[in-house]
């Protein structure tokens, strides 16, 4: 199948515009840098400096031109060329297809998960198209407590909304392939029942109208494999999260629209808040296990990019559609949680390096792999650029004849350097300016973000804070990249999703090295000249203030205070969409009772027991996965009257064995009667 057959006519022009201008800018910037560096000849550190500059500048240039494309696309307000959109008449026609909405979860807070699912379910019901949708919670939870809490929350949800037979719950005992394996397992069992599958994340929330729109677009475009609705970060109260929510709301759409404008039918899939053509996914997106050992071999960790590439290889298009709206997720509550998530994603993205040259892929799929790699490698490149610059300055300071610098024509072109710096900064901040411009000019939007003045102030404050936090993230990501390449093991635990304060001790423990690096950089710069130290000040200040920045931005009280002052407000906070408001309301209205001990709960609570036993019986053979030794020792403790608590493994073993649970409950009941 011709993998280029679905691109609209303007594709070449659009791509040449963005990629060509990005390449031209990079060449021009690098030549200017080379001219500046070669004033007194070129030393080895300067050659390295130039290479790192070219890579970093190229990355900035691509973001810049993508944002410009996004701005133009937004201003002209045209739909992306390519897909067929429904007419007004077609929008009223019943859906002819069936769609499953799946939410893979792994040891998450069931209150938030099921509140979001209920809000999404009710939102779909409100459209009148509920009959076309089924919902699945696909649990990979390994903690017994999470498992039992999920069962109870699922049962409550079904009864609350009358979702029996439409909202399903399945738990895997074997977590092979992590999230991708979880989704694959769903496809192999129930995938053939559905035309399309909407993949959600544990913190995803989607408007029913968006889901219906996506299903309709898939119906109308039979060669479309995936439609990604970019999720907007919402729902958190910590200052750090509110900064991300604000940035995502003001600058995000410009960048996403720009990416969609030039990537068109070769866009990317982000793993959630997207609809996929189930049959094509089953037939063409079964992930291979890569040869070799980690970090590049083994199971594919970041499955989404690879699935998009395979879908495209099979002849189906992948679209990013920012205009869909109604797609939400939650940002991490603080910098450390963000870094923890990045550590996972970093290894997954670096693993894609081994796929860049894989046979049969579309060139843009390869580009997506490289862009994913660059989003992490840019940090160590920036660090190396700084270090190479420092090394070059130290080299000139200690090894160059000082009289050379005084000769006309050999002195540094300070105004030229300043000009290049200003251009770099301008390109870096342009997406923010363009996003702000759009927000200021759109009717009513600025008012819903605190008013024009507050909006501008918020952008300025966000830019300052983001600049101060950037050096810390640079060091975190550099550590992850080097660590991954050196065989760092990634622990795929679920991320922190609560708005809890961070203790100062935790901040100090995580950032001690960062502060030391900041002090070292500052000292080395001072050795050269106070001027260089001043140039490095933004980086050094960010590193030296890492602890208070992390701890204070993790505070919900500061986030709430900023909201009261009208800072970092987003329209979804001032006038929340119905689905968001409903999810919040459900969380407050229907509190999920915590499960401190899963086995104890199943043995003492008649409802939990009956429900768990019914679910166990519906999945026969589950107990075969239980290690016999764990079950044996669990039985000894439960039935032998030992007061010893069960280990995590013993709890899971007991919960998988209906016979043991029945015997133990009977024993408890008899004991209580007598």
């Amino acid at each position, binding site marked *: 199948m011709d993998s280029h057959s679905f691109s609209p006519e303007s594709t070449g022009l659009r791509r040449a515009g963005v990629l060509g201008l990005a390449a031209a800018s990079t060449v021009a910037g690098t030549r200017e840098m080379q001219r500046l560096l070669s004033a007194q000849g070129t030393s080895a550190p300067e050659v390295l400096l130039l290479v790192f500059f070219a890579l970093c500048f190229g990355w900035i240039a691509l973001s810049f031109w993508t944002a410009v494309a996004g701005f133009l696309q937004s201003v002209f307000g045209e739909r992306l060329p390519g897909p067929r959109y429904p007419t007004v008449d077609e929008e009223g026609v019943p859906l002819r297809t069936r769609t499953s909405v799946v939410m893979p979860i792994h040891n998450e807070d069931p209150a938030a998960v099921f509140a979001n699912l209920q809000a999404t379910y009710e939102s779909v019901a409100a459209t009148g198209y509920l009959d076309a949708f*089924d919902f*699945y919670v696909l649990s990979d939870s390994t903690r017994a407590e999470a498992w039992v809490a999920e069962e109870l929350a699922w*049962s409550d949800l*079904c*009864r609350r909304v*009358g979702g*029996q*037979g439409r909202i*399903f*719950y*399945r738990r895997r005992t074997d977590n092979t392939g992590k999230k991708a394996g979880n989704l*694959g397992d769903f*496809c*192999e*069992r*129930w*995938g*053939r*029942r559905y035309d399309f599958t909407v993949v959600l994340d544990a913190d995803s929330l989607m408007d029913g109208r968006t889901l219906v729109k996506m299903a309709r677009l898939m119906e109308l475009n039979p060669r479309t494999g995936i439609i990604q609705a970019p999720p907007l970060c919402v729902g958190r109260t910590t200052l750090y999260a509110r900064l991300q929510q604000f940035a995502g709301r003001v600058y995000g759409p410009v960048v996403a629209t720009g990416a969609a404008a030039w990537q068109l039918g070769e866009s990317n899939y982000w793993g959630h808040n997207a609809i996929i053509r189930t049959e094509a996914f*089953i*037939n*063409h*997106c*079964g*992930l*291979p*296990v*890569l*040869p070799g050992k980690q970090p590049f071999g083994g199971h594919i960790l970041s499955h989404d990019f690879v699935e998009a590439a*395979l879908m495209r290889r099979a002849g189906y298009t992948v679209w990013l559609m920012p205009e869909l709206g109604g797609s939400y997720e939650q940002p991490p509550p603080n910098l450390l949680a963000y870094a923890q998530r990045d550590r996972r994603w970093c290894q997954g993205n670096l693993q894609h390096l*081994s*796929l860049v*040259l*894989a*046979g*049969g892929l579309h060139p843009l799929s390869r580009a997506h792999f490289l862009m994913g790699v660059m989003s992490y490698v840019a940090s160590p490149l920036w660090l190396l650029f700084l270090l190479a610059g420092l090394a070059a300055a130290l080299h000139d300071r200690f090894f160059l004849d000082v009289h050379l610098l005084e000769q006309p024509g050999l002195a540094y072109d300070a105004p030229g350097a300043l000009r290049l710096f200003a251009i770099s900064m301008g390109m870096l901040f342009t997406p923010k300016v363009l996003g702000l411009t759009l927000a200021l000019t759109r009717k009513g939007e600025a008012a819903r973000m605190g008013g024009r003045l507050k909006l501008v102030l918020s952008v300025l404050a966000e830019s300052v804070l983001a600049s101060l936090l950037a050096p810390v993230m640079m060091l975190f990501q550099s550590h992850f990249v080097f660590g991954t390449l050196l065989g760092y093991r990634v622990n795929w635990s679920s991320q922190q999703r609560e708005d809890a304060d961070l203790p100062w001790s935790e901040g100090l423990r995580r950032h001690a090295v960062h502060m030391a690096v900041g002090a070292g950089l500052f000292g080395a710069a001072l050795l050269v000249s106070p001027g260089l130290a001043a140039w490095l000040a933004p980086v050094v200040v960010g590193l030296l203030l890492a602890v208070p920045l992390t701890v204070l931005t993790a505070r919900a009280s500061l986030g709430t205070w900023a909201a009261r002052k009208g800072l970092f407000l987003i329209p979804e906070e001032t006038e929340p969409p119905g689905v968001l408001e409903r999810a919040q309301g459900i969380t407050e209205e229907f509190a999920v009772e915590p499960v401190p001990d899963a086995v104890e709960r199943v043995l003492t609570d*008649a*409802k939990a*027991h*009956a*429900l768990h*036993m*019914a*679910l166990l*019986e*519906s*999945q026969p053979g589950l107990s075969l996965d239980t290690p016999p030794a764990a079950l044996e020792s669990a039985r000894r403790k439960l039935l032998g009257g030992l007061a010893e608590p069960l280990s995590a493994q013993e709890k899971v073993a007991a919960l998988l064995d209906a016979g043991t649970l029945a015997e133990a*409950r*009977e024993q408890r*009941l*008899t004991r209580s009667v007598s």
Partner: protein
Amino acid sequence: MDSVTTMTSCPSVPSSIWARPQSRVALDSFFRGFGFTSEADLSALAAWALDGYAAHGAQPQSALGLARARVETWLAGVLGTEHVGTSLLSRGRAAFVLCDVASRGARVLMQPSAPEELCRVMRAAVPVPAPAQVTTVMPEQHLTLWPFGEMFRRWFRGAAPDVSISR
């Protein structure tokens, strides 16, 4: 001791229904699983389960079998034929417990037909974890990671294939 028999104490069932202690223990345990706790309810349910089958109720297993059959018949009537099958008892029991039907007393099981409102509530509470499976295989995709290397390998028949591993 096998020869000792106990008479049920519920006035609503015939006083001629007798159950051995072991059978009674098994039946009590079974009905406690549905949320019944009072002695009066448990006695009445034991008698209801064994009504007309006194001869078979001599052994605990037989008594339990009778009780299961009775309850399954009742559940099938309430939940409809949709759930009839191997999991009727466990799913029905879950719905029964989740709806706290036991609080209505043992009489609820003994009436010829359950109230419509109860049927509706119980049907909505039956846990249906997943629909019937339509099993398929998601074939692992073949990726040649470095096609040029693969071409050389084929020419020289050296080294391991540079492709994804089959499961």
